[in-house]
C-alpha cells in the first residue's frame, strides 16, 4: 500500500502528466488488481460506526454519510484506489491544464446515465460544482474554501467542463478528485438544492435500495454502470452500530465482512486470533487528527491564558502511548500530518503550548495561567462529543483525566451525530467539543481551512486576519518550499494563540474477511469507497 507523502510538483509537470493520467483513467476501471479471477455476485456486508446526519456529501463531513452513499455516485476525478494519492478520471475521461494554470478543461465520458435514466452531461457537473463553490442561501458547503482559486465553472458543450481560475493553484487538481464532490443531476438541484439531503440519484456502480435510519443502508448493482463489466457485487449493506465491540463482534461472527473505518488493535488482535487466515489486516496512517475545539466566542475562552492552560494541561506524548492500543490515536503533531512535507519538526513543535516534553512543568504553567486569569481553583466545563466510542470517547476520557490534574472539571456529554454537528458546527452551542479534522489527502488548502474566518469547518469560531492572509497566500503559491513556509507560519499563529487544542493523529487498522477481494485501504476512510472493483471470493 502506497502511503508515502505527496510532493507538490511544479505546474508544468502537472500539466504534462495530466494528459497521460487522464488516459490512464480511461482504463483504470478495467484494470483488475490481484491475481485471482474476479467472481460476480454476493452482497458485501459492512459495519459502520454512525448514522448519516444527511445523505448529501456536499453538506456533510462524516464517513457516516460518505461511506454508504459513495458507491451510488460518480465524481469528476478520483484518487486512484491502487496508487494513492494519484489522480485518475471518473466521469472525466481526460483533461488539460492551460500553460498559465488558469484554465482546466475536462472531457466527460459519453454514455453515462443517472439511475433515473437521464444522461450525465457537463451541465450536471457544472450544477454540482456551482452548488459547492457558490452555494445558494440556506445550503451549506463544507469545502468551498478548498476551491478559492476557482472563478467560474462553464459547460460550453454537453461533454466539456471548464474551470476558470483566479490564480494558479497547486491543490486544485487533487481537490477535484474529492470523493465528497459527487455529481448530482441538475434538474433536481434546480428544483431544490437541498434535495439530496434526503434523496439519492447518482450514476455510480450501485443504485440506492433502502435506508432505515440508525439501522441499515443498502445498495444494489447498477446494470447500466458506465464501466460495462462493473461492479462485481450484486449489492452492499451497511449495519449501523456506535459500539466498537458490536462492530468487532459482527466481523468475528461473519455478520459483517468489513469495517472500513478502523478497529482498535485489541479488537483486531482478538479477531485475527479467532479467525486466523480467514481475515486480512490492513494498517496505514490516517489523514485525520482528533482535537478539541474551543469556543473562542464565550467566556472564559475569550482569554488566551485560559486557552493556553487547556492546551498545556494535556500530555500528548503520553496520550499517544496510552491511546494507540485502545484507539489507534498515536502521532503528536499540529495541523498537518507528522512526517509529511507540510509538518512542523518535533523540535519546532515543542516550543508551543502543550507540546513541551515536561508534562509536570506544563501543568504548573497551566495552573499559574489559570490563577492569573482568575481561576486559581480551576472551573467546570462541558465537553461535548459525538456518541461514537472509537476514538471520540476514548480521546475525551483521556482529556478529561488530564484536565482534572490542573483543576478543570469537565462533564462529558456525548451527542448523537446530527446533534453533535448541530451544536458544534452549525450553532456554536458548546464550550469545548471533540473535533476531528481530516481530509482524503495531505493537502494544506483542506487541512488548514478550519482556521480561516467564516469557514463552516471553523468550529472554534475565531478570526485572525494574519491567518486568513497566510491561507490565501499559500493557496496561490506553486513553489513547494515557499508554500511550506507559509503553511508552517499559519500553524504557528494558531498554536501561539491557542485558538484550538490539537490532539493526536490517527492510524488506521482495517480488518476484513479474506474473501473480500480487490479493496485496498488508503490513509483515508473517505476514498476508495465506490466498491466498483470489489468482489467476494465466496458467499
Amino acid at each position, binding site marked *: 500500500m502506497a502511503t508515502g507523502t505527496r510532493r507538490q510538483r511544479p505546474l508544468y509537470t502537472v500539466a504534462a502528466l495530466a494528459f497521460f493520467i487522464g488516459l490512464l483513467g480511461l482504463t483504470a476501471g478495467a484494470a483488475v488488481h490481484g491475481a485471482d479471477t474476479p467472481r460476480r455476485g454476493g452482497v458485501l456486508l459492512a459495519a459502520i460506526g454512525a448514522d448519516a446526519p444527511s445523505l448529501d456529501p456536499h453538506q456533510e463531513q462524516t464517513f457516516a454519510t460518505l461511506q454508504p452513499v459513495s458507491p451510488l455516485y460518480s465524481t469528476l476525478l478520483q484518487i486512484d484506489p491502487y496508487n494513492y494519492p494519484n489522480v485518475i478520471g471518473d466521469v472525466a475521461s481526460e483533461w488539460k491544464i492551460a500553460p498559465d494554470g488558469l484554465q482546466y478543461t475536462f472531457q466527460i465520458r459519453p454514455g453515462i446515465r443517472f439511475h433515473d435514466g437521464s444522461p450525465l452531461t457537463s451541465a450536471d457537473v457544472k450544477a454540482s460544482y456551482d452548488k459547492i463553490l457558490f452555494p445558494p442561501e440556506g445550503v451549506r458547503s463544507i469545502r468551498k474554501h478548498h476551491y478559492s482559486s476557482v472563478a467560474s465553472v462553464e459547460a460550453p458543450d454537453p461533454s466539456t467542463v471548464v474551470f476558470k481560475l483566479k490564480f494558479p493553484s497547486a491543490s486544485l487538481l487533487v481537490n477535484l478528485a474529492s470523493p465528497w464532490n459527487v455529481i448530482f443531476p441538475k434538474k433536481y438541484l434546480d428544483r431544490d438544492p437541498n434535495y439530496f439531503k434526503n434523496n439519492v440519484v447518482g450514476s455510480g456502480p450501485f443504485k440506492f435500495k433502502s435506508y432505515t435510519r440508525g439501522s441499515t443502508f443498502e445498495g444494489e448493482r447498477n446494470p447500466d454502470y458506465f464501466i460495462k463489466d462493473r461492479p462485481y457485487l450484486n449489492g452492499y449493506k451497511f449495519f449501523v452500530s456506535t459500539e466498537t465491540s458490536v462492530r468487532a463482534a459482527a466481523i468475528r461472527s461473519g455478520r459483517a465482512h468489513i469495517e472500513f473505518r478502523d478497529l482498535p488493535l485489541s479488537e483486531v488482535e482478538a479477531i485475527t486470533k479467532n479467525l486466523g487466515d480467514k481475515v486480512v489486516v490492513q494498517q496505514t496512517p490516517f489523514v485525520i487528527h482528533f482535537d478539541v475545539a474551543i469556543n473562542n466566542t464565550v467566556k472564559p475562552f475569550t482569554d488566551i491564558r485560559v486557552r493556553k492552560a487547556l492546551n498545556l494541561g494535556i500530555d500528548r506524548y503520553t496520550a499517544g502511548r*496510552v491511546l494507540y492500543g485502545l484507539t489507534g490515536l498515536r502521532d503528536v503533531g499540529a495541523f498537518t500530518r507528522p512526517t509529511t512535507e507540510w509538518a512542523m519538526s518535533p523540535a519546532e513543535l515543542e516550543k508551543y503550548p502543550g507540546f513541551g516534553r515536561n508534562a509536570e512543568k506544563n501543568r504548573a504553567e497551566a495552573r499559574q495561567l489559570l490563577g492569573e486569569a482568575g481561576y486559581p481553583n480551576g472551573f467546570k466545563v462541558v465537553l461535548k462529543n459525538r*456518541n461514537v466510542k472509537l476514538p471520540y470517547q476514548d480521546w475525551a476520557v483521556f482529556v*478529561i483525566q488530564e484536565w482534572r*490534574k490542573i483543576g478543570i472539571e469537565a462533564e462529558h456529554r*456525548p451527542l448523537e451525530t446530527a446533534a453533535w454537528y448541530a451544536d458544534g458546527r452549525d450553532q456554536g452551542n458548546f464550550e469545548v467539543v471533540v473535533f476531528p479534522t481530516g481530509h482524503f489527502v495531505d493537502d494544506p488548502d483542506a487541512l488548514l481551512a478550519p482556521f480561516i474566518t467564516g469557514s463552516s469547518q471553523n468550529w472554534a469560531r475565531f478570526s485572525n486576519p494574519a491567518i486568513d492572509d497566510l491561507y490565501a497566500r499559500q493557496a496561490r503559491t506553486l513553489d513547494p518550499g515557499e508554500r511550506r513556509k507559509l503553511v508552517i507560519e499559519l500553524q504557528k499563529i494558531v498554536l501561539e494563540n491557542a485558538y484550538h487544542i490539537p490532539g493526536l493523529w490517527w492510524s488506521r487498522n482495517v480488518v476484513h474477511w479474506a474473501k473480500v477481494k480487490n479493496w485496498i485501504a488508503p490513509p483515508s476512510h473517505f476514498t476508495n469507497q465506490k466498491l466498483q472493483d470489489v468482489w467476494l471470493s465466496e458467499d
Partner: protein
Amino acid sequence: MATSIELAHASASATLAPKPSVTEVVARFVRTKPLGAAGGVIILGMLFLAVFAQMLAPYDPYVGDYGLQFSRPSAEHWFGTDEFGRDVMSRIMYGARIALFVGFTASLIGCTIGALLGVISAYWGGRVDLLLERLMDILLAFPQLILALAIASILGPAVQNVVIAISIPVIPRVARVVRSAALSVKENVYVEAVQALGATRRRVILQHIIPNVAAPYIIMLTAQLGAAILAEAALSYLGLGAAEPTPSWGLMLSGSAPSYAEKAPWIALFPGIAISLGVFGFNLFGDSLRDALDPKLKG
C-alpha cells in the same frame, strides 16, 4: 354482673402490649426474615461505601496510572485496573453512589407521583379517574425498560436524565396499586364520618387516605429500588445512561469491557458482581418488607 364486667375491662386493659422499640422491631425482623436481613446488610454495605467512598477508595476513580493499563488484580489494586490504568475497586466504590442515587431518587419520584395520582384518581373518581386511568393504560402498554430507553434516548445520556427515564415507567404501576388501596380506604366509615363533619378534601386525602395507603407505597418503593438500579445499569450499558468517565457500574460493564473481556476479564467481572449483589440485596429486603407489612400475608 356489674363486677364481672369491670373485671373484663380490667383484664382487657392489662393485656395491651407496650409499643416495641426500634431495636425490638429490627431484632424481630432479623429473626423472622433472615434473608431480608441479609438484603438489609447488603444495602447498608452499599450505603456505607457510597457515603464514605472518598475515604475508603484507595485511588482517584477518574484518574488512571498510565503505566498500569490492564493490571491484574494484585495487592495494590485488588480488583485490577482498566484500560486507562484506573483502579477498578475505587470505581466500584464510587459507582455505588450513582447506583444508590439513581435507585433511590428514581424510585422515590416515580412511586410518590404514582401514589399521588392513584389517590387522586380513587378519591375524585368520575372523569378524573377515567382520564388518569387511560393515561396509565398508555404508559403501561410499554414494557418498563423499553419506555425508559425511549425516554433516555430523547433526553440524552446524563445521570439526571436516567433518573427521569427510570421514574416515569414506575408511575403507572404504583398508581394502579395505590388507587386500588385508596378505593377501599375511601369506602371506610371513618372517612365518611370526617366528610360528614365537614373536613376538606385536602384534609381527607392527607390525613385519612394517604396514611392508610402507606404500606403498599413502601412495598412498591422497595420493590422498585432494585429494578431501578438494574435499569440504570442497563441504560448505561446501552450508552444512554451516565457518560464516561463517570464510575457507573453499568457503564463499566459496557464501555470498553466487551472489547477487553478476554485480555482483562476483571474489568467486566467486578462491576457485574456489584450490580448482581446490589439488586439481589434490594430484592431480598423488598420481599421481606412486603411480607412484614402486607396484612394479607400475615399469618
